[in-house]
């Protein structure tokens, strides 16, 4: 993975010094709350319900074991011994003290980490596929360009204070796992007719209050031009985005208001001026950064292993885990492994300090000392030998990281919600926990099969509920907490936004509502049809009827 040179290190060090001084000025009363807000936000610091929340950047979800160990140490020393991995592939600390944040950042800087632009109205952390570099369906490893974009966007002077936050995702696979269509800019890498790396550029996607999938603004962009093209897009947005209304300030609203044709023509004419400007990426720079993402020193292995097969055939718990948590790898004899952060009845995406250090050790032992964070809020060891799967499983299981539920109903994607977040309308974690308890039967979960359930505590949609096959959204009705349910959302190449099934429910009703939705699926599905396929075939009416019919008969 990418390693800092003296220049990168100096930038994060200077950032720590700058932020330390800003915090000092704030505490000394030289900066008002309003003036400090954008400064602290651009360093990932929110003021939350109980305490500040600090969001630490994990660029495109990649961590080294050393970094994860540092996160374990920080969460123990400055927080309550755990952290929350978010849908933006970042780590959030829920209980740091404001006064401590400069020290936390300076600790982070010692392992090439920071919290720069993890919040605020600026270009945020670049996200991508958690299997980048190892996925069999990958055409281009997007991480080198992602790193180049990260550097370019860090303190980009022109885009330091945009109308609203700005999210970029990159993807280089046949099956999109980075939800490029739900980002302000989505960059989809492919090989063009002359076998050169090209980029399809999506713009104006986003969830939140007004969920909209992105539109292709440019079908073919040469990779060299990706920074200048993004500059053209963001410049048009910076000048014309709706600063008058925070709810309409995302680029998607501008794109929609102008229409994609007009927006495209403004961007293209802007781009003509800066197309070949110095920020055009050179071959040598791409080469320099790509070296950090060179293939791991894999051994030449058979794609079978007797010891593994024995355990697989004789140990049902192990084989259940392999089926759900082990993923194909481009290299023979290797697999990618997801360590589930979704044990039943615990807050999705949370990991304790102890778990973090264990994962760091496991990665050193079995996966070249690297870890990835997925936007589904799990941890991934990307390069595990077949023969190591069994010992890895045993050790992961000992610390509660081997729940065999990846891709199943209880692998819930969930934002921190009302327990922590001051923007929340309703709690989200207890809903996730209640659903996990309701479905705490692995056989039944396997029978239901692949399904995605997403929960957000408010319209901001940090839990991506619009693209969940089942989406749950916390809403406020006369000061009490209610939940609106959508079905039929989906991430991926054929992404869709879910449809609301009807009036919202109380927290107590939610596990029952999900059960009734699943009942309809079980009854209606044909052969191997997945939940989302059934929904797409029969529409939402049968689900709606059953969910609400039951209710009236109960009354």
């Amino acid at each position: 993975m990418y390693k800092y040179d003296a220049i990168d290190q100096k930038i994060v060090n200077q950032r720590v010094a700058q932020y330390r001084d800003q915090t000092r000025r704030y505490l000394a009363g030289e900066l008002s709350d309003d003036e400090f807000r954008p400064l602290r936000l651009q360093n990932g610091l929110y003021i939350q319900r109980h305490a500040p929340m600090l969001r630490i950047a994990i660029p495109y979800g990649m961590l080294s074991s050393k970094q994860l160990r540092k996160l374990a140490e920080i969460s123990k020393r400055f927080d309550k011994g755990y952290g929350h991995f978010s849908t933006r592939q970042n780590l959030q600390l829920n209980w740091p003290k404001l006064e401590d944040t400069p020290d936390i950042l300076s600790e982070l800087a010692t392992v090439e980490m920071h919290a720069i632009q993890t919040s605020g109205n600026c270009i945020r952390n670049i996200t991508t596929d958690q299997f980048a570099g190892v996925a069999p369906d990958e055409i281009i490893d997007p991480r080198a360009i992602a790193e180049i974009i990260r550097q370019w966007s860090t303190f980009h002077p022109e885009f330091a204070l945009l109308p609203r936050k700005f999210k970029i995702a990159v993807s280089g696979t046949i099956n999109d796992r980075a939800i490029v269509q739900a980002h302000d800019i989505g960059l989809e890498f492919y090989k063009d007719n002359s076998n050169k790396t090209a980029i399809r550029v999506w713009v104006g996607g986003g969830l939140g209050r007004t969920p909209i999938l992105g539109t292709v603004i440019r079908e073919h962009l040469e990779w060299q031009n990706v920074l200048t093209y993004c500059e053209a897009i963001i410049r048009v947005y910076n000048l014309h985005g709706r600063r008058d209304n925070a709810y309409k300030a995302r680029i998607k609203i501008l794109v929609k208001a102008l229409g994609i044709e007009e927006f495209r023509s403004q961007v293209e004419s802007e781009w003509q001026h800066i197309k070949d400007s110095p920020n055009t990426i050179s071959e040598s720079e791409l080469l320099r950064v790509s070296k950090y993402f060179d293939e791991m020193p894999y051994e030449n292995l058979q794609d079978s292993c007797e010891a593994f097969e024995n355990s697989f055939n004789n140990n049902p718990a192990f084989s259940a885990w392999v089926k759900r948590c082990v993923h194909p790898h481009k290299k023979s004899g290797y697999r990618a492994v997801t360590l589930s952060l979704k044990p039943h009845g615990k807050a999705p995406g949370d990991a304790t300090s102890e778990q973090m250090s264990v994962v760091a050790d496991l990665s050193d032992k079995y996966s070249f000392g690297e870890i990835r964070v997925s936007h589904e809020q799990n941890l991934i060891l990307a390069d595990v030998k077949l023969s190591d799967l069994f010992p890895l499983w045993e050790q992961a299981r000992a610390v509660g990281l081997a729940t065999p539920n990846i891709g199943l109903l209880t692998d819930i994607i969930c934002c921190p919600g009302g327990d922590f977040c001051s923007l929340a309308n309703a709690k989200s974690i207890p809903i996730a926990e209640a659903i996990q308890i309701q479905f705490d039967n692995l056989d039944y979960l396997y029978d239901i099969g692949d399904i995605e359930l997403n929960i957000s505590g408010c319209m901001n949609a940090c839990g991506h509920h619009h693209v969940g096959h089942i989406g749950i959204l916390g809403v406020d009705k006369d000061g009490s907490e209610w939940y609106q349910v959508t079905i039929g959302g989906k991430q991926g190449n054929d992404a869709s936004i879910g449809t609301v099934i009807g009036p919202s429910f109380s927290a107590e009703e939610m596990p029952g509502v999900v059960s009734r939705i699943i009942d309809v699926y079980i009854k209606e599905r044909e052969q191997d049809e997945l939940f989302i396929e059934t929904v797409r075939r029969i529409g939402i009416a049968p689900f709606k009827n059953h969910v609400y019919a039951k209710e009236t008969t109960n009354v």
Partner: protein
Amino acid sequence: MSNLIANGKVVDDEWTLVKLPPPPDEKVRKQAGKVVLFKLTGENTHTNSQIESVEIPPEGKVLLPLPLWTLKKQELSNRVSKGEIGVWLETHELVESLSCSISDINKLPVIGVHVERFADGRIFTIGNLLRSRYGFKNELRAFGDVLRDQLYFLKRCGFDSYLIRNDRSAADALASLNDFSEPYQGAVDITQPVWRRIDRQG
């Protein structure tokens, strides 16, 4: 004591700022229940008669609001040649309106950009366009809600003078011009990105 920073030090301000009167009918506007704090790009705020009524000091260096300049530029041509006229724009005004209003933008010794609120990042694009698209070479000044934590970005977008908000110390703010020494991306002040400036292969 002046609160103007230019060329890296606190200096006296030679320019007299001329403002438009607040529009008489300015109401508090709301959007989605919140007070609107930012004007939309391209929005007109004053009528011609309001603009006409503004007095221009007859002597010395004056910094005029763009609408006033546009309206009176004919009668000011003498003073333009004497280098007495500068123009300033609001962040919601279009740079093109200024560039179209004068045959050679470099006849203006100073262009100011007023930022009403710290969080309004349009000022950065405006600076960038004035320098890189319209080739403005003279003093480019930021004023209004200008605080030290914008300075580094303003500098990188081509500003070279900063009138710090009057309740803050310009001397303190100077330090923030150099918050970072080696930026990643090319911008106005340092046009080359880091990989074209420094050999990072080592």
